[in-house]
């Protein structure tokens, strides 16, 4: 007798296995709208990447030690001594970057296809919270190697919260666990990164997926005029869409391993609280905000930088027109494109600001606000030790 029928019979004597099978069958063969394509796989890709972060994160925790005396050394051990440690850290570091990218692409797709509109407003809000959690993962994880870049990026990042009126100083104190960035900060960020955020994100993702499965994928039809999916044109979730996701998933694994091999995660120098290195920059997904903050006084900068996330969060309740097709939503699409272009431009300026670049054979110094200054070879700035 085969194993599965025996196991099923054993379970069926104790549980309502038929109901579970019926549920799985229904979910597996749920028809998807005909326009469901590769762009619809970025949500699942984000989920795969989250699983990658959990698995590689657990492996990293085996050797990582979250104290100021051991954090940097333990990462160096992982990179140089532990078998395949460099690969696991590389997959974790690149996985984080790709996860932010996939969540962003998923949000952009949802925005331009009007999929956030009624009745899926809460699914969108949860998606924005998932994005917030993802970049908070990035922020807390960035400090953990306890190197110069991570230490000073965290110092600057947490210092900014101090400018929030009334509560800023308290928030900064709570985040850092004291006045400066110390071992207390490292412990707090570690706990947030490996315990609090994973569970919070798991919970939000569970509700997000539940709502998505209950309400189904959005079509391009006007709000309130959605027609039932034509079974002749529908795409079955299994095997058609699952296979499509499988293809993308394999490509993603290939890309991640290639990135980890060709551009391994760097470690740099150990954090020195008494020496700030030049050219400290946050991770790429904070670059646009980092640059934006330079154009305004601290408090105003915080208020301005809060506009995009707040706008994202409440957008379904502002844009209540029934149209979903991008061509019929010129204002929303225009605002979306403008937001994307601004984020990219500020990000690029943030990347090159306060650095020396060579363009067309000439040397320029890009100042704090991104303005280029032509440099003469003899006039290059020199600093005393």
């Amino acid at each position: 007798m085969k194993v599965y029928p025996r196991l099923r019979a054993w379970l069926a004597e104790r549980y309502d296995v038929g109901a579970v099978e019926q549920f799985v069958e229904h979910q597996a063969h749920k028809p998807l709208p005909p326009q469901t394509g590769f762009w619809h796989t970025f949500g699942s890709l984000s989920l795969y990447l989250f699983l990658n972060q959990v698995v590689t994160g657990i492996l990293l925790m085996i050797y990582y030690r979250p104290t100021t005396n051991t954090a940097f050394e333990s990462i160096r051990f992982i990179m140089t001594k532990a078998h395949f440690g460099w690969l696991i850290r590389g997959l974790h570091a690149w996985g984080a970057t790709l996860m932010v990218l996939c969540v962003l692409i998923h949000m952009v797709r949802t925005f331009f296809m009007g999929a956030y509109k009624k009745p899926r407003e809460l699914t969108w809000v949860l998606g924005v919270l998932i994005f917030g959690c993802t970049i908070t993962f990035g922020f807390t994880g960035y400090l953990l190697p306890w190197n110069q870049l991570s230490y000073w990026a965290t110092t600057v990042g947490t210092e900014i919260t101090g400018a929030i009126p009334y509560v800023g100083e308290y928030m900064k104190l709570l985040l850092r666990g004291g006045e400066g960035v110390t071992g207390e900060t490292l412990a707090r960020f570690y706990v947030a990164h490996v315990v609090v955020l994973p569970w919070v994100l798991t919970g939000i993702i569970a509700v997000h997926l539940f709502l998505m499965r209950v309400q189904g994928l959005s079509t391009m039809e006007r709000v309130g005029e959605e027609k039932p999916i034509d079974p002749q044109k529908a795409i079955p979730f299994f095997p058609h869409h699952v296979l499509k996701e499988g293809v993308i998933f394999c490509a993603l694994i290939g890309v991640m391993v290639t990135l980890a091999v060709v551009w391994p995660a760097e470690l740099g120098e150990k954090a020195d609280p008494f020496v700030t290195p030049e050219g400290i920059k946050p991770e790429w997904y904070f670059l646009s905000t980092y640059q934006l903050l330079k154009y305004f006084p601290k408090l105003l900068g915080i208020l301005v930088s809060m506009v995009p996330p707040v706008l994202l969060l409440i957008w379904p309740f502002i844009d209540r027109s029934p149209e979903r097709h991008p061509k019929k939503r010129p204002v929303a699409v225009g605002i979306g494109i403008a937001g994307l272009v601004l984020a990219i431009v500020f990000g690029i300026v943030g990347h090159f600001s306060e650095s020396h670049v060579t363009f067309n054979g000439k040397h320029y110094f890009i100042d704090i606000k991104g303005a280029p200054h032509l440099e003469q070879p003899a006039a290059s700035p020199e600093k005393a030790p």
Partner: protein
Amino acid sequence: MNDDHKISRRTFLDWVLTGGLIAWAAAFLAPVVSYVWPSQKRGPAVQTVSAGKEADFHDWQSKIVAVSGHPVIVVRTPQGFRAFSAICTHLGCIVGWDATRRQIACPCHAGFFDLNGRVVGGPPPRPLTEHGVAVINGEVMVKSA
């Protein structure tokens, strides 16, 4: 008492139960919040540390020393020693001595301070806090602010 404003026994019990639940939740939360809140360790009110021998400094030379756990920049000028908190008032980076400009410079966002700690360029909103510095028996002594 007007009957319209009378509180029914059920409403009263609702309030008591709701209040009890809030108090119960607060009793659990209060220790958690106070546990997470950083304990403020305070060192001695005034600490004086040596920045090194006077002879080891020449004019316009600087050094960063730890005073009560905080970085302090000490600069020797022809008129004597000056010492300031080395934490930039903008975003907390550690400042350094720019020998070319003869100013204290922040490497993060190009903030500059003069030898009185005043902001002379860039985004810092406040001057650097000055520390007392004196030469005692050939030793450069810096006081906590």
